[in-house]
C-alpha cells in the first residue's frame, strides 16, 4: 500500500517536471507602437451665469465667465477659441445682441494670447477669446500651459438701456475651440 503510494507520488513529481519547462519558456515579442496625436481641443464653460448690476441707477449688468480649455496644436498650426451668440435674447422685446449692447473683455491669459480691447457679441460673427501658438499644449509648463486645463476669464457687460422693458431675459453663447 505504501509502495503503491510512493509510486503515485513519483508519477506526480514527473508530471510537474514536465510542466516546468513550459512555464519557464521565454518569448520576446517586439511590438511597434505608433500613436498619432492630432491637433485637438476641448473647452468647458459654466452652463449658465447671471448678469447683475450695481447700486447706481442704470449701471451696466456684468458677470465674469471662466473658460477652461485643453488644446494641442501642431508644429505649424495654431489654435483659437471664439464666442458667438447662438441666437438673440429671449423673450423678444428685450435687449438685442445685434445692437451692440452685449460686450466683453478678456483678462490676461495665463497661456496663449487673450483678446484685446472690448469685443462685441452678435449672432453673425465669431469673436476672439484667445489665440494659441504652434506646438501649444496644456499642462506641465515648459512650453505648455502651467495648468491643465488652461483658463481665461471673460468679463461680460450688458448695457442697462433704459428702453429695455422690465423682465427676465437670456441669451445662449457658443464657444468654439479649433486647433490645427
Amino acid at each position, binding site marked *: 500500500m505504501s509502495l503503491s503510494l510512493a509510486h503515485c507520488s513519483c508519477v506526480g513529481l514527473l508530471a510537474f517536471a514536465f510542466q516546468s519547462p513550459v512555464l519557464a519558456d521565454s518569448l520576446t515579442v517586439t511590438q511597434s507602437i505608433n500613436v498619432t496625436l492630432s491637433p485637438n481641443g476641448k473647452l468647458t464653460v459654466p452652463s449658465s451665469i447671471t448678469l447683475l448690476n450695481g447700486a447706481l441707477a442704470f449701471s451696466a*449688468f456684468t458677470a465674469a465667465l471662466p473658460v477652461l480649455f485643453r488644446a494641442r496644436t501642431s508644429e505649424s498650426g495654431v489654435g483659437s477659441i471664439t464666442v458667438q451668440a447662438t441666437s438673440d435674447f429671449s423673450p423678444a422685446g428685450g435687449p438685442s445682441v445685434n445692437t451692440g449692447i452685449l460686450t466683453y473683455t478678456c483678462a490676461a491669459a495665463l497661456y496663449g494670447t487673450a483678446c484685446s480691447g472690448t469685443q462685441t457679441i452678435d449672432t453673425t460673427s465669431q469673436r476672439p477669446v484667445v489665440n494659441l501658438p504652434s506646438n501649444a499644449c496644456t499642462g506641465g509648463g515648459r512650453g505648455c500651459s502651467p495648468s491643465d486645463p488652461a483658463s481665461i476669464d471673460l468679463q461680460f457687460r*450688458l448695457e442697462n438701456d433704459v428702453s429695455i422693458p*422690465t423682465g427676465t431675459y437670456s441669451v*445662449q453663447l457658443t464657444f468654439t475651440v479649433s486647433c490645427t
Partner: protein
Amino acid sequence: MRVLKNTLLAGALTLAVIAVPAMAQQKTGTTILGVTVLAESSLTVTDANTTLAKTDTLFGDFTGTTNLKYRIRTTASGGSGSIVAQVNEFTGNGPKVAADLSYSSTTGGLGTAVTNQAASTTGANVISFGPNARSAKAGNDAAVNWRLGDDPQFETGSYSSTVTFTVSAT
C-alpha cells in the same frame, strides 16, 4: 499560447490609440447669460439755482424755470413712477410756500404734467408715470415753471428756498 499573448498585446495597444482622439471630441461649449431688468430711475437738476424774476414790476408774479433731465423705467405691468418736488419754507416775513408758490411742468414727452400745482413743503407731484414708461437712453428733458405771487404784504428783501426733487419708479 504564443499567438494568444501576441493578440492580446496588440488588442490592448489598439484600444489605447483609439482612446486618445476620443477624449478630445468636444469642440464647443455653451452658456446661458441671464439678466433680470427691474424698474429704475435717475434725475439730474440741470439748473443748480433758479432766480424768480418779474416782467410786470407792479405786483406782477415772479416767474422762473428749473430744468431737469430724468431717466425712468417702470415695471411693464402694474408699475408707476413720479418726480416729486419738496420745497423748503422761505425764511423771514416774505412769501410762504403753500400760499404763494405754484408751478406747472413739462414732461419731455413722457408721463403726465401738472398745471398750477401748489408747492408743498412735504412734496407734490411734478410728473407722474404709468406702467412700462421708458425714457430716452440719454434721458428726457423736463421743466418746472415756477410762479410766485407778489403780495404787498411781503417785506422787501431777498428770499430763498431749497427744492428737493425725487424720482421714483416701481
